[in-house]
């Protein structure tokens, strides 16, 4: 599970510092992982072999020279379609922010199904609010699904910063939707115009130059689809919920009970995700 949210795992463990996120994320979108990074990610090398790579000036060359992998393994890695975990690992190596031994340890520790770095990050944020600890797990699961949806529908990796978000209201847009029924949850995205347009383009697959009805529809539909997936998942646990129609506002800060604000950093920039127990007022 953690490999899907590898960037978040790196952030939570301090391997990736929040001050570096802004330039590491965009670079990781286009990074091409070398074979030794893929080999380490896939657990094809022993610790001794990784130590040898770490002490080499050119780890990629050392992997070939020392014949650590069979020809079949090499061919298989060359044909690999690298995921975002491998890409961000490559950026950390390139930027000398982590070494191959540390990355190997992170790959191994973040791999099990029971590792949920996004949930952990949200719990940490929620713990800084008075009286909100009971919603930490639920908000965390929503945020995990949200980051997964960004990966799936907008072709971007994303992380939740663990520091409380300071929203910038000026020149901002907010898209929100309430879910009611057996459980009441509202979700909103607050973003500047540039990120709004980028997200609208990515979700719709259209070339939208201005924030018009189409761009607003695109983000409203994105929120609607995510919340739909959320209520379907809840329905599978016998929690029946309904969706309200999404709302869009400008230059507003939402108010609601049990409100938590979290800053999400993606390849294209950052925005604030709000979660609350009742409908947002703005």
């Amino acid at each position: 599970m953690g490999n899907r949210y590898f960037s978040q795992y790196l952030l939570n463990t301090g391997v990736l510092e929040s001050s570096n996120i802004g330039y590491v994320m965009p670079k990781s979108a286009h990074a091409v992982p070398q074979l030794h990074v893929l080999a380490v990610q896939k657990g094809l090398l022993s610790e001794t072999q990784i130590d040898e790579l770490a002490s080499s000036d050119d780890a990629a060359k050392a992997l070939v020279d020392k014949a650590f992998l069979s020809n079949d393994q090499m061919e298989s890695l060359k044909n690999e379609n690298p995921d975002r975990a491998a890409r961000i690992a490559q950026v950390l190596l390139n930027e000398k922010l982590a070494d191959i031994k540390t990355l190997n340890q992170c790959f191994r520790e973040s791999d099990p199904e029971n590792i949920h770095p996004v949930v952990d990050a949200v719990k940490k944020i929620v713990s800084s609010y008075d009286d909100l600890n009971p919603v930490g797990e639920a908000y965390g699961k929503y945020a995990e699904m949200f980051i997964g949806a960004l990966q799936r529908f907008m072709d971007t990796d994303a992380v939740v910063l663990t520091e409380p978000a300071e929203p910038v209201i000026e020149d901002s847009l907010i898209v929100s939707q309430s879910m009611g029924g057996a459980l009441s949850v509202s979700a909103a995205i607050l973003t500047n115009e540039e990120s709004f347009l980028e997200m609208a383009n990515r979700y719709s697959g259209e070339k939208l130059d201005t924030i018009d009805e189409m761009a607003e529809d695109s983000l409203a539909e994105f929120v609607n689809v995510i919340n739909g997936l959320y209520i379907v998942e809840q329905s599978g646990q016998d929690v029946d919920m309904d969706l309200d129609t999404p709302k869009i506002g400008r230059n507003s800060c939402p108010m609601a009970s049990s409100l938590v604000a979290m800053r999400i950093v993606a390849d294209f920039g950052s925005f604030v995700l709000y979660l609350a127990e009742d409908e947002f007022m703005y």
Partner: protein
Amino acid sequence: MADKLKILITDDSKLLRKKLRAELEQLGCEVIEAENGKEAIMKDLQEQPDGVILDIVMPEVGGIEALQVIKEVNPDIPIIMLSSAGTSQKLKETLELGALDFIQKPYTSDQIRQAVERIRRKVEENGK
């Protein structure tokens, strides 16, 4: 039935209508649009489509109310629900009200192709 199926699509999102129109036209359908349940009920009466694709969460009149009204007026018309609100409860409710199928958003092109086929078969069964 004319060779071209006439499909009424109902969704409050202009973007979704545009994308769905493109998919359906690619499949050789004639498309008419409504942006909420109220408009869908009117267009159903005026245009007499062969089938309807209907969202649920819409302002003014929602998809479930529209489904009920359209089915009262025109019990044989095939209606496919296309919504993000695909909970087991909504699925059961809409199928009981006479919907032919339910597609959870986000849809795939293949799901739309299959929906059109189901509408076509239903229209043929009805002998329209």
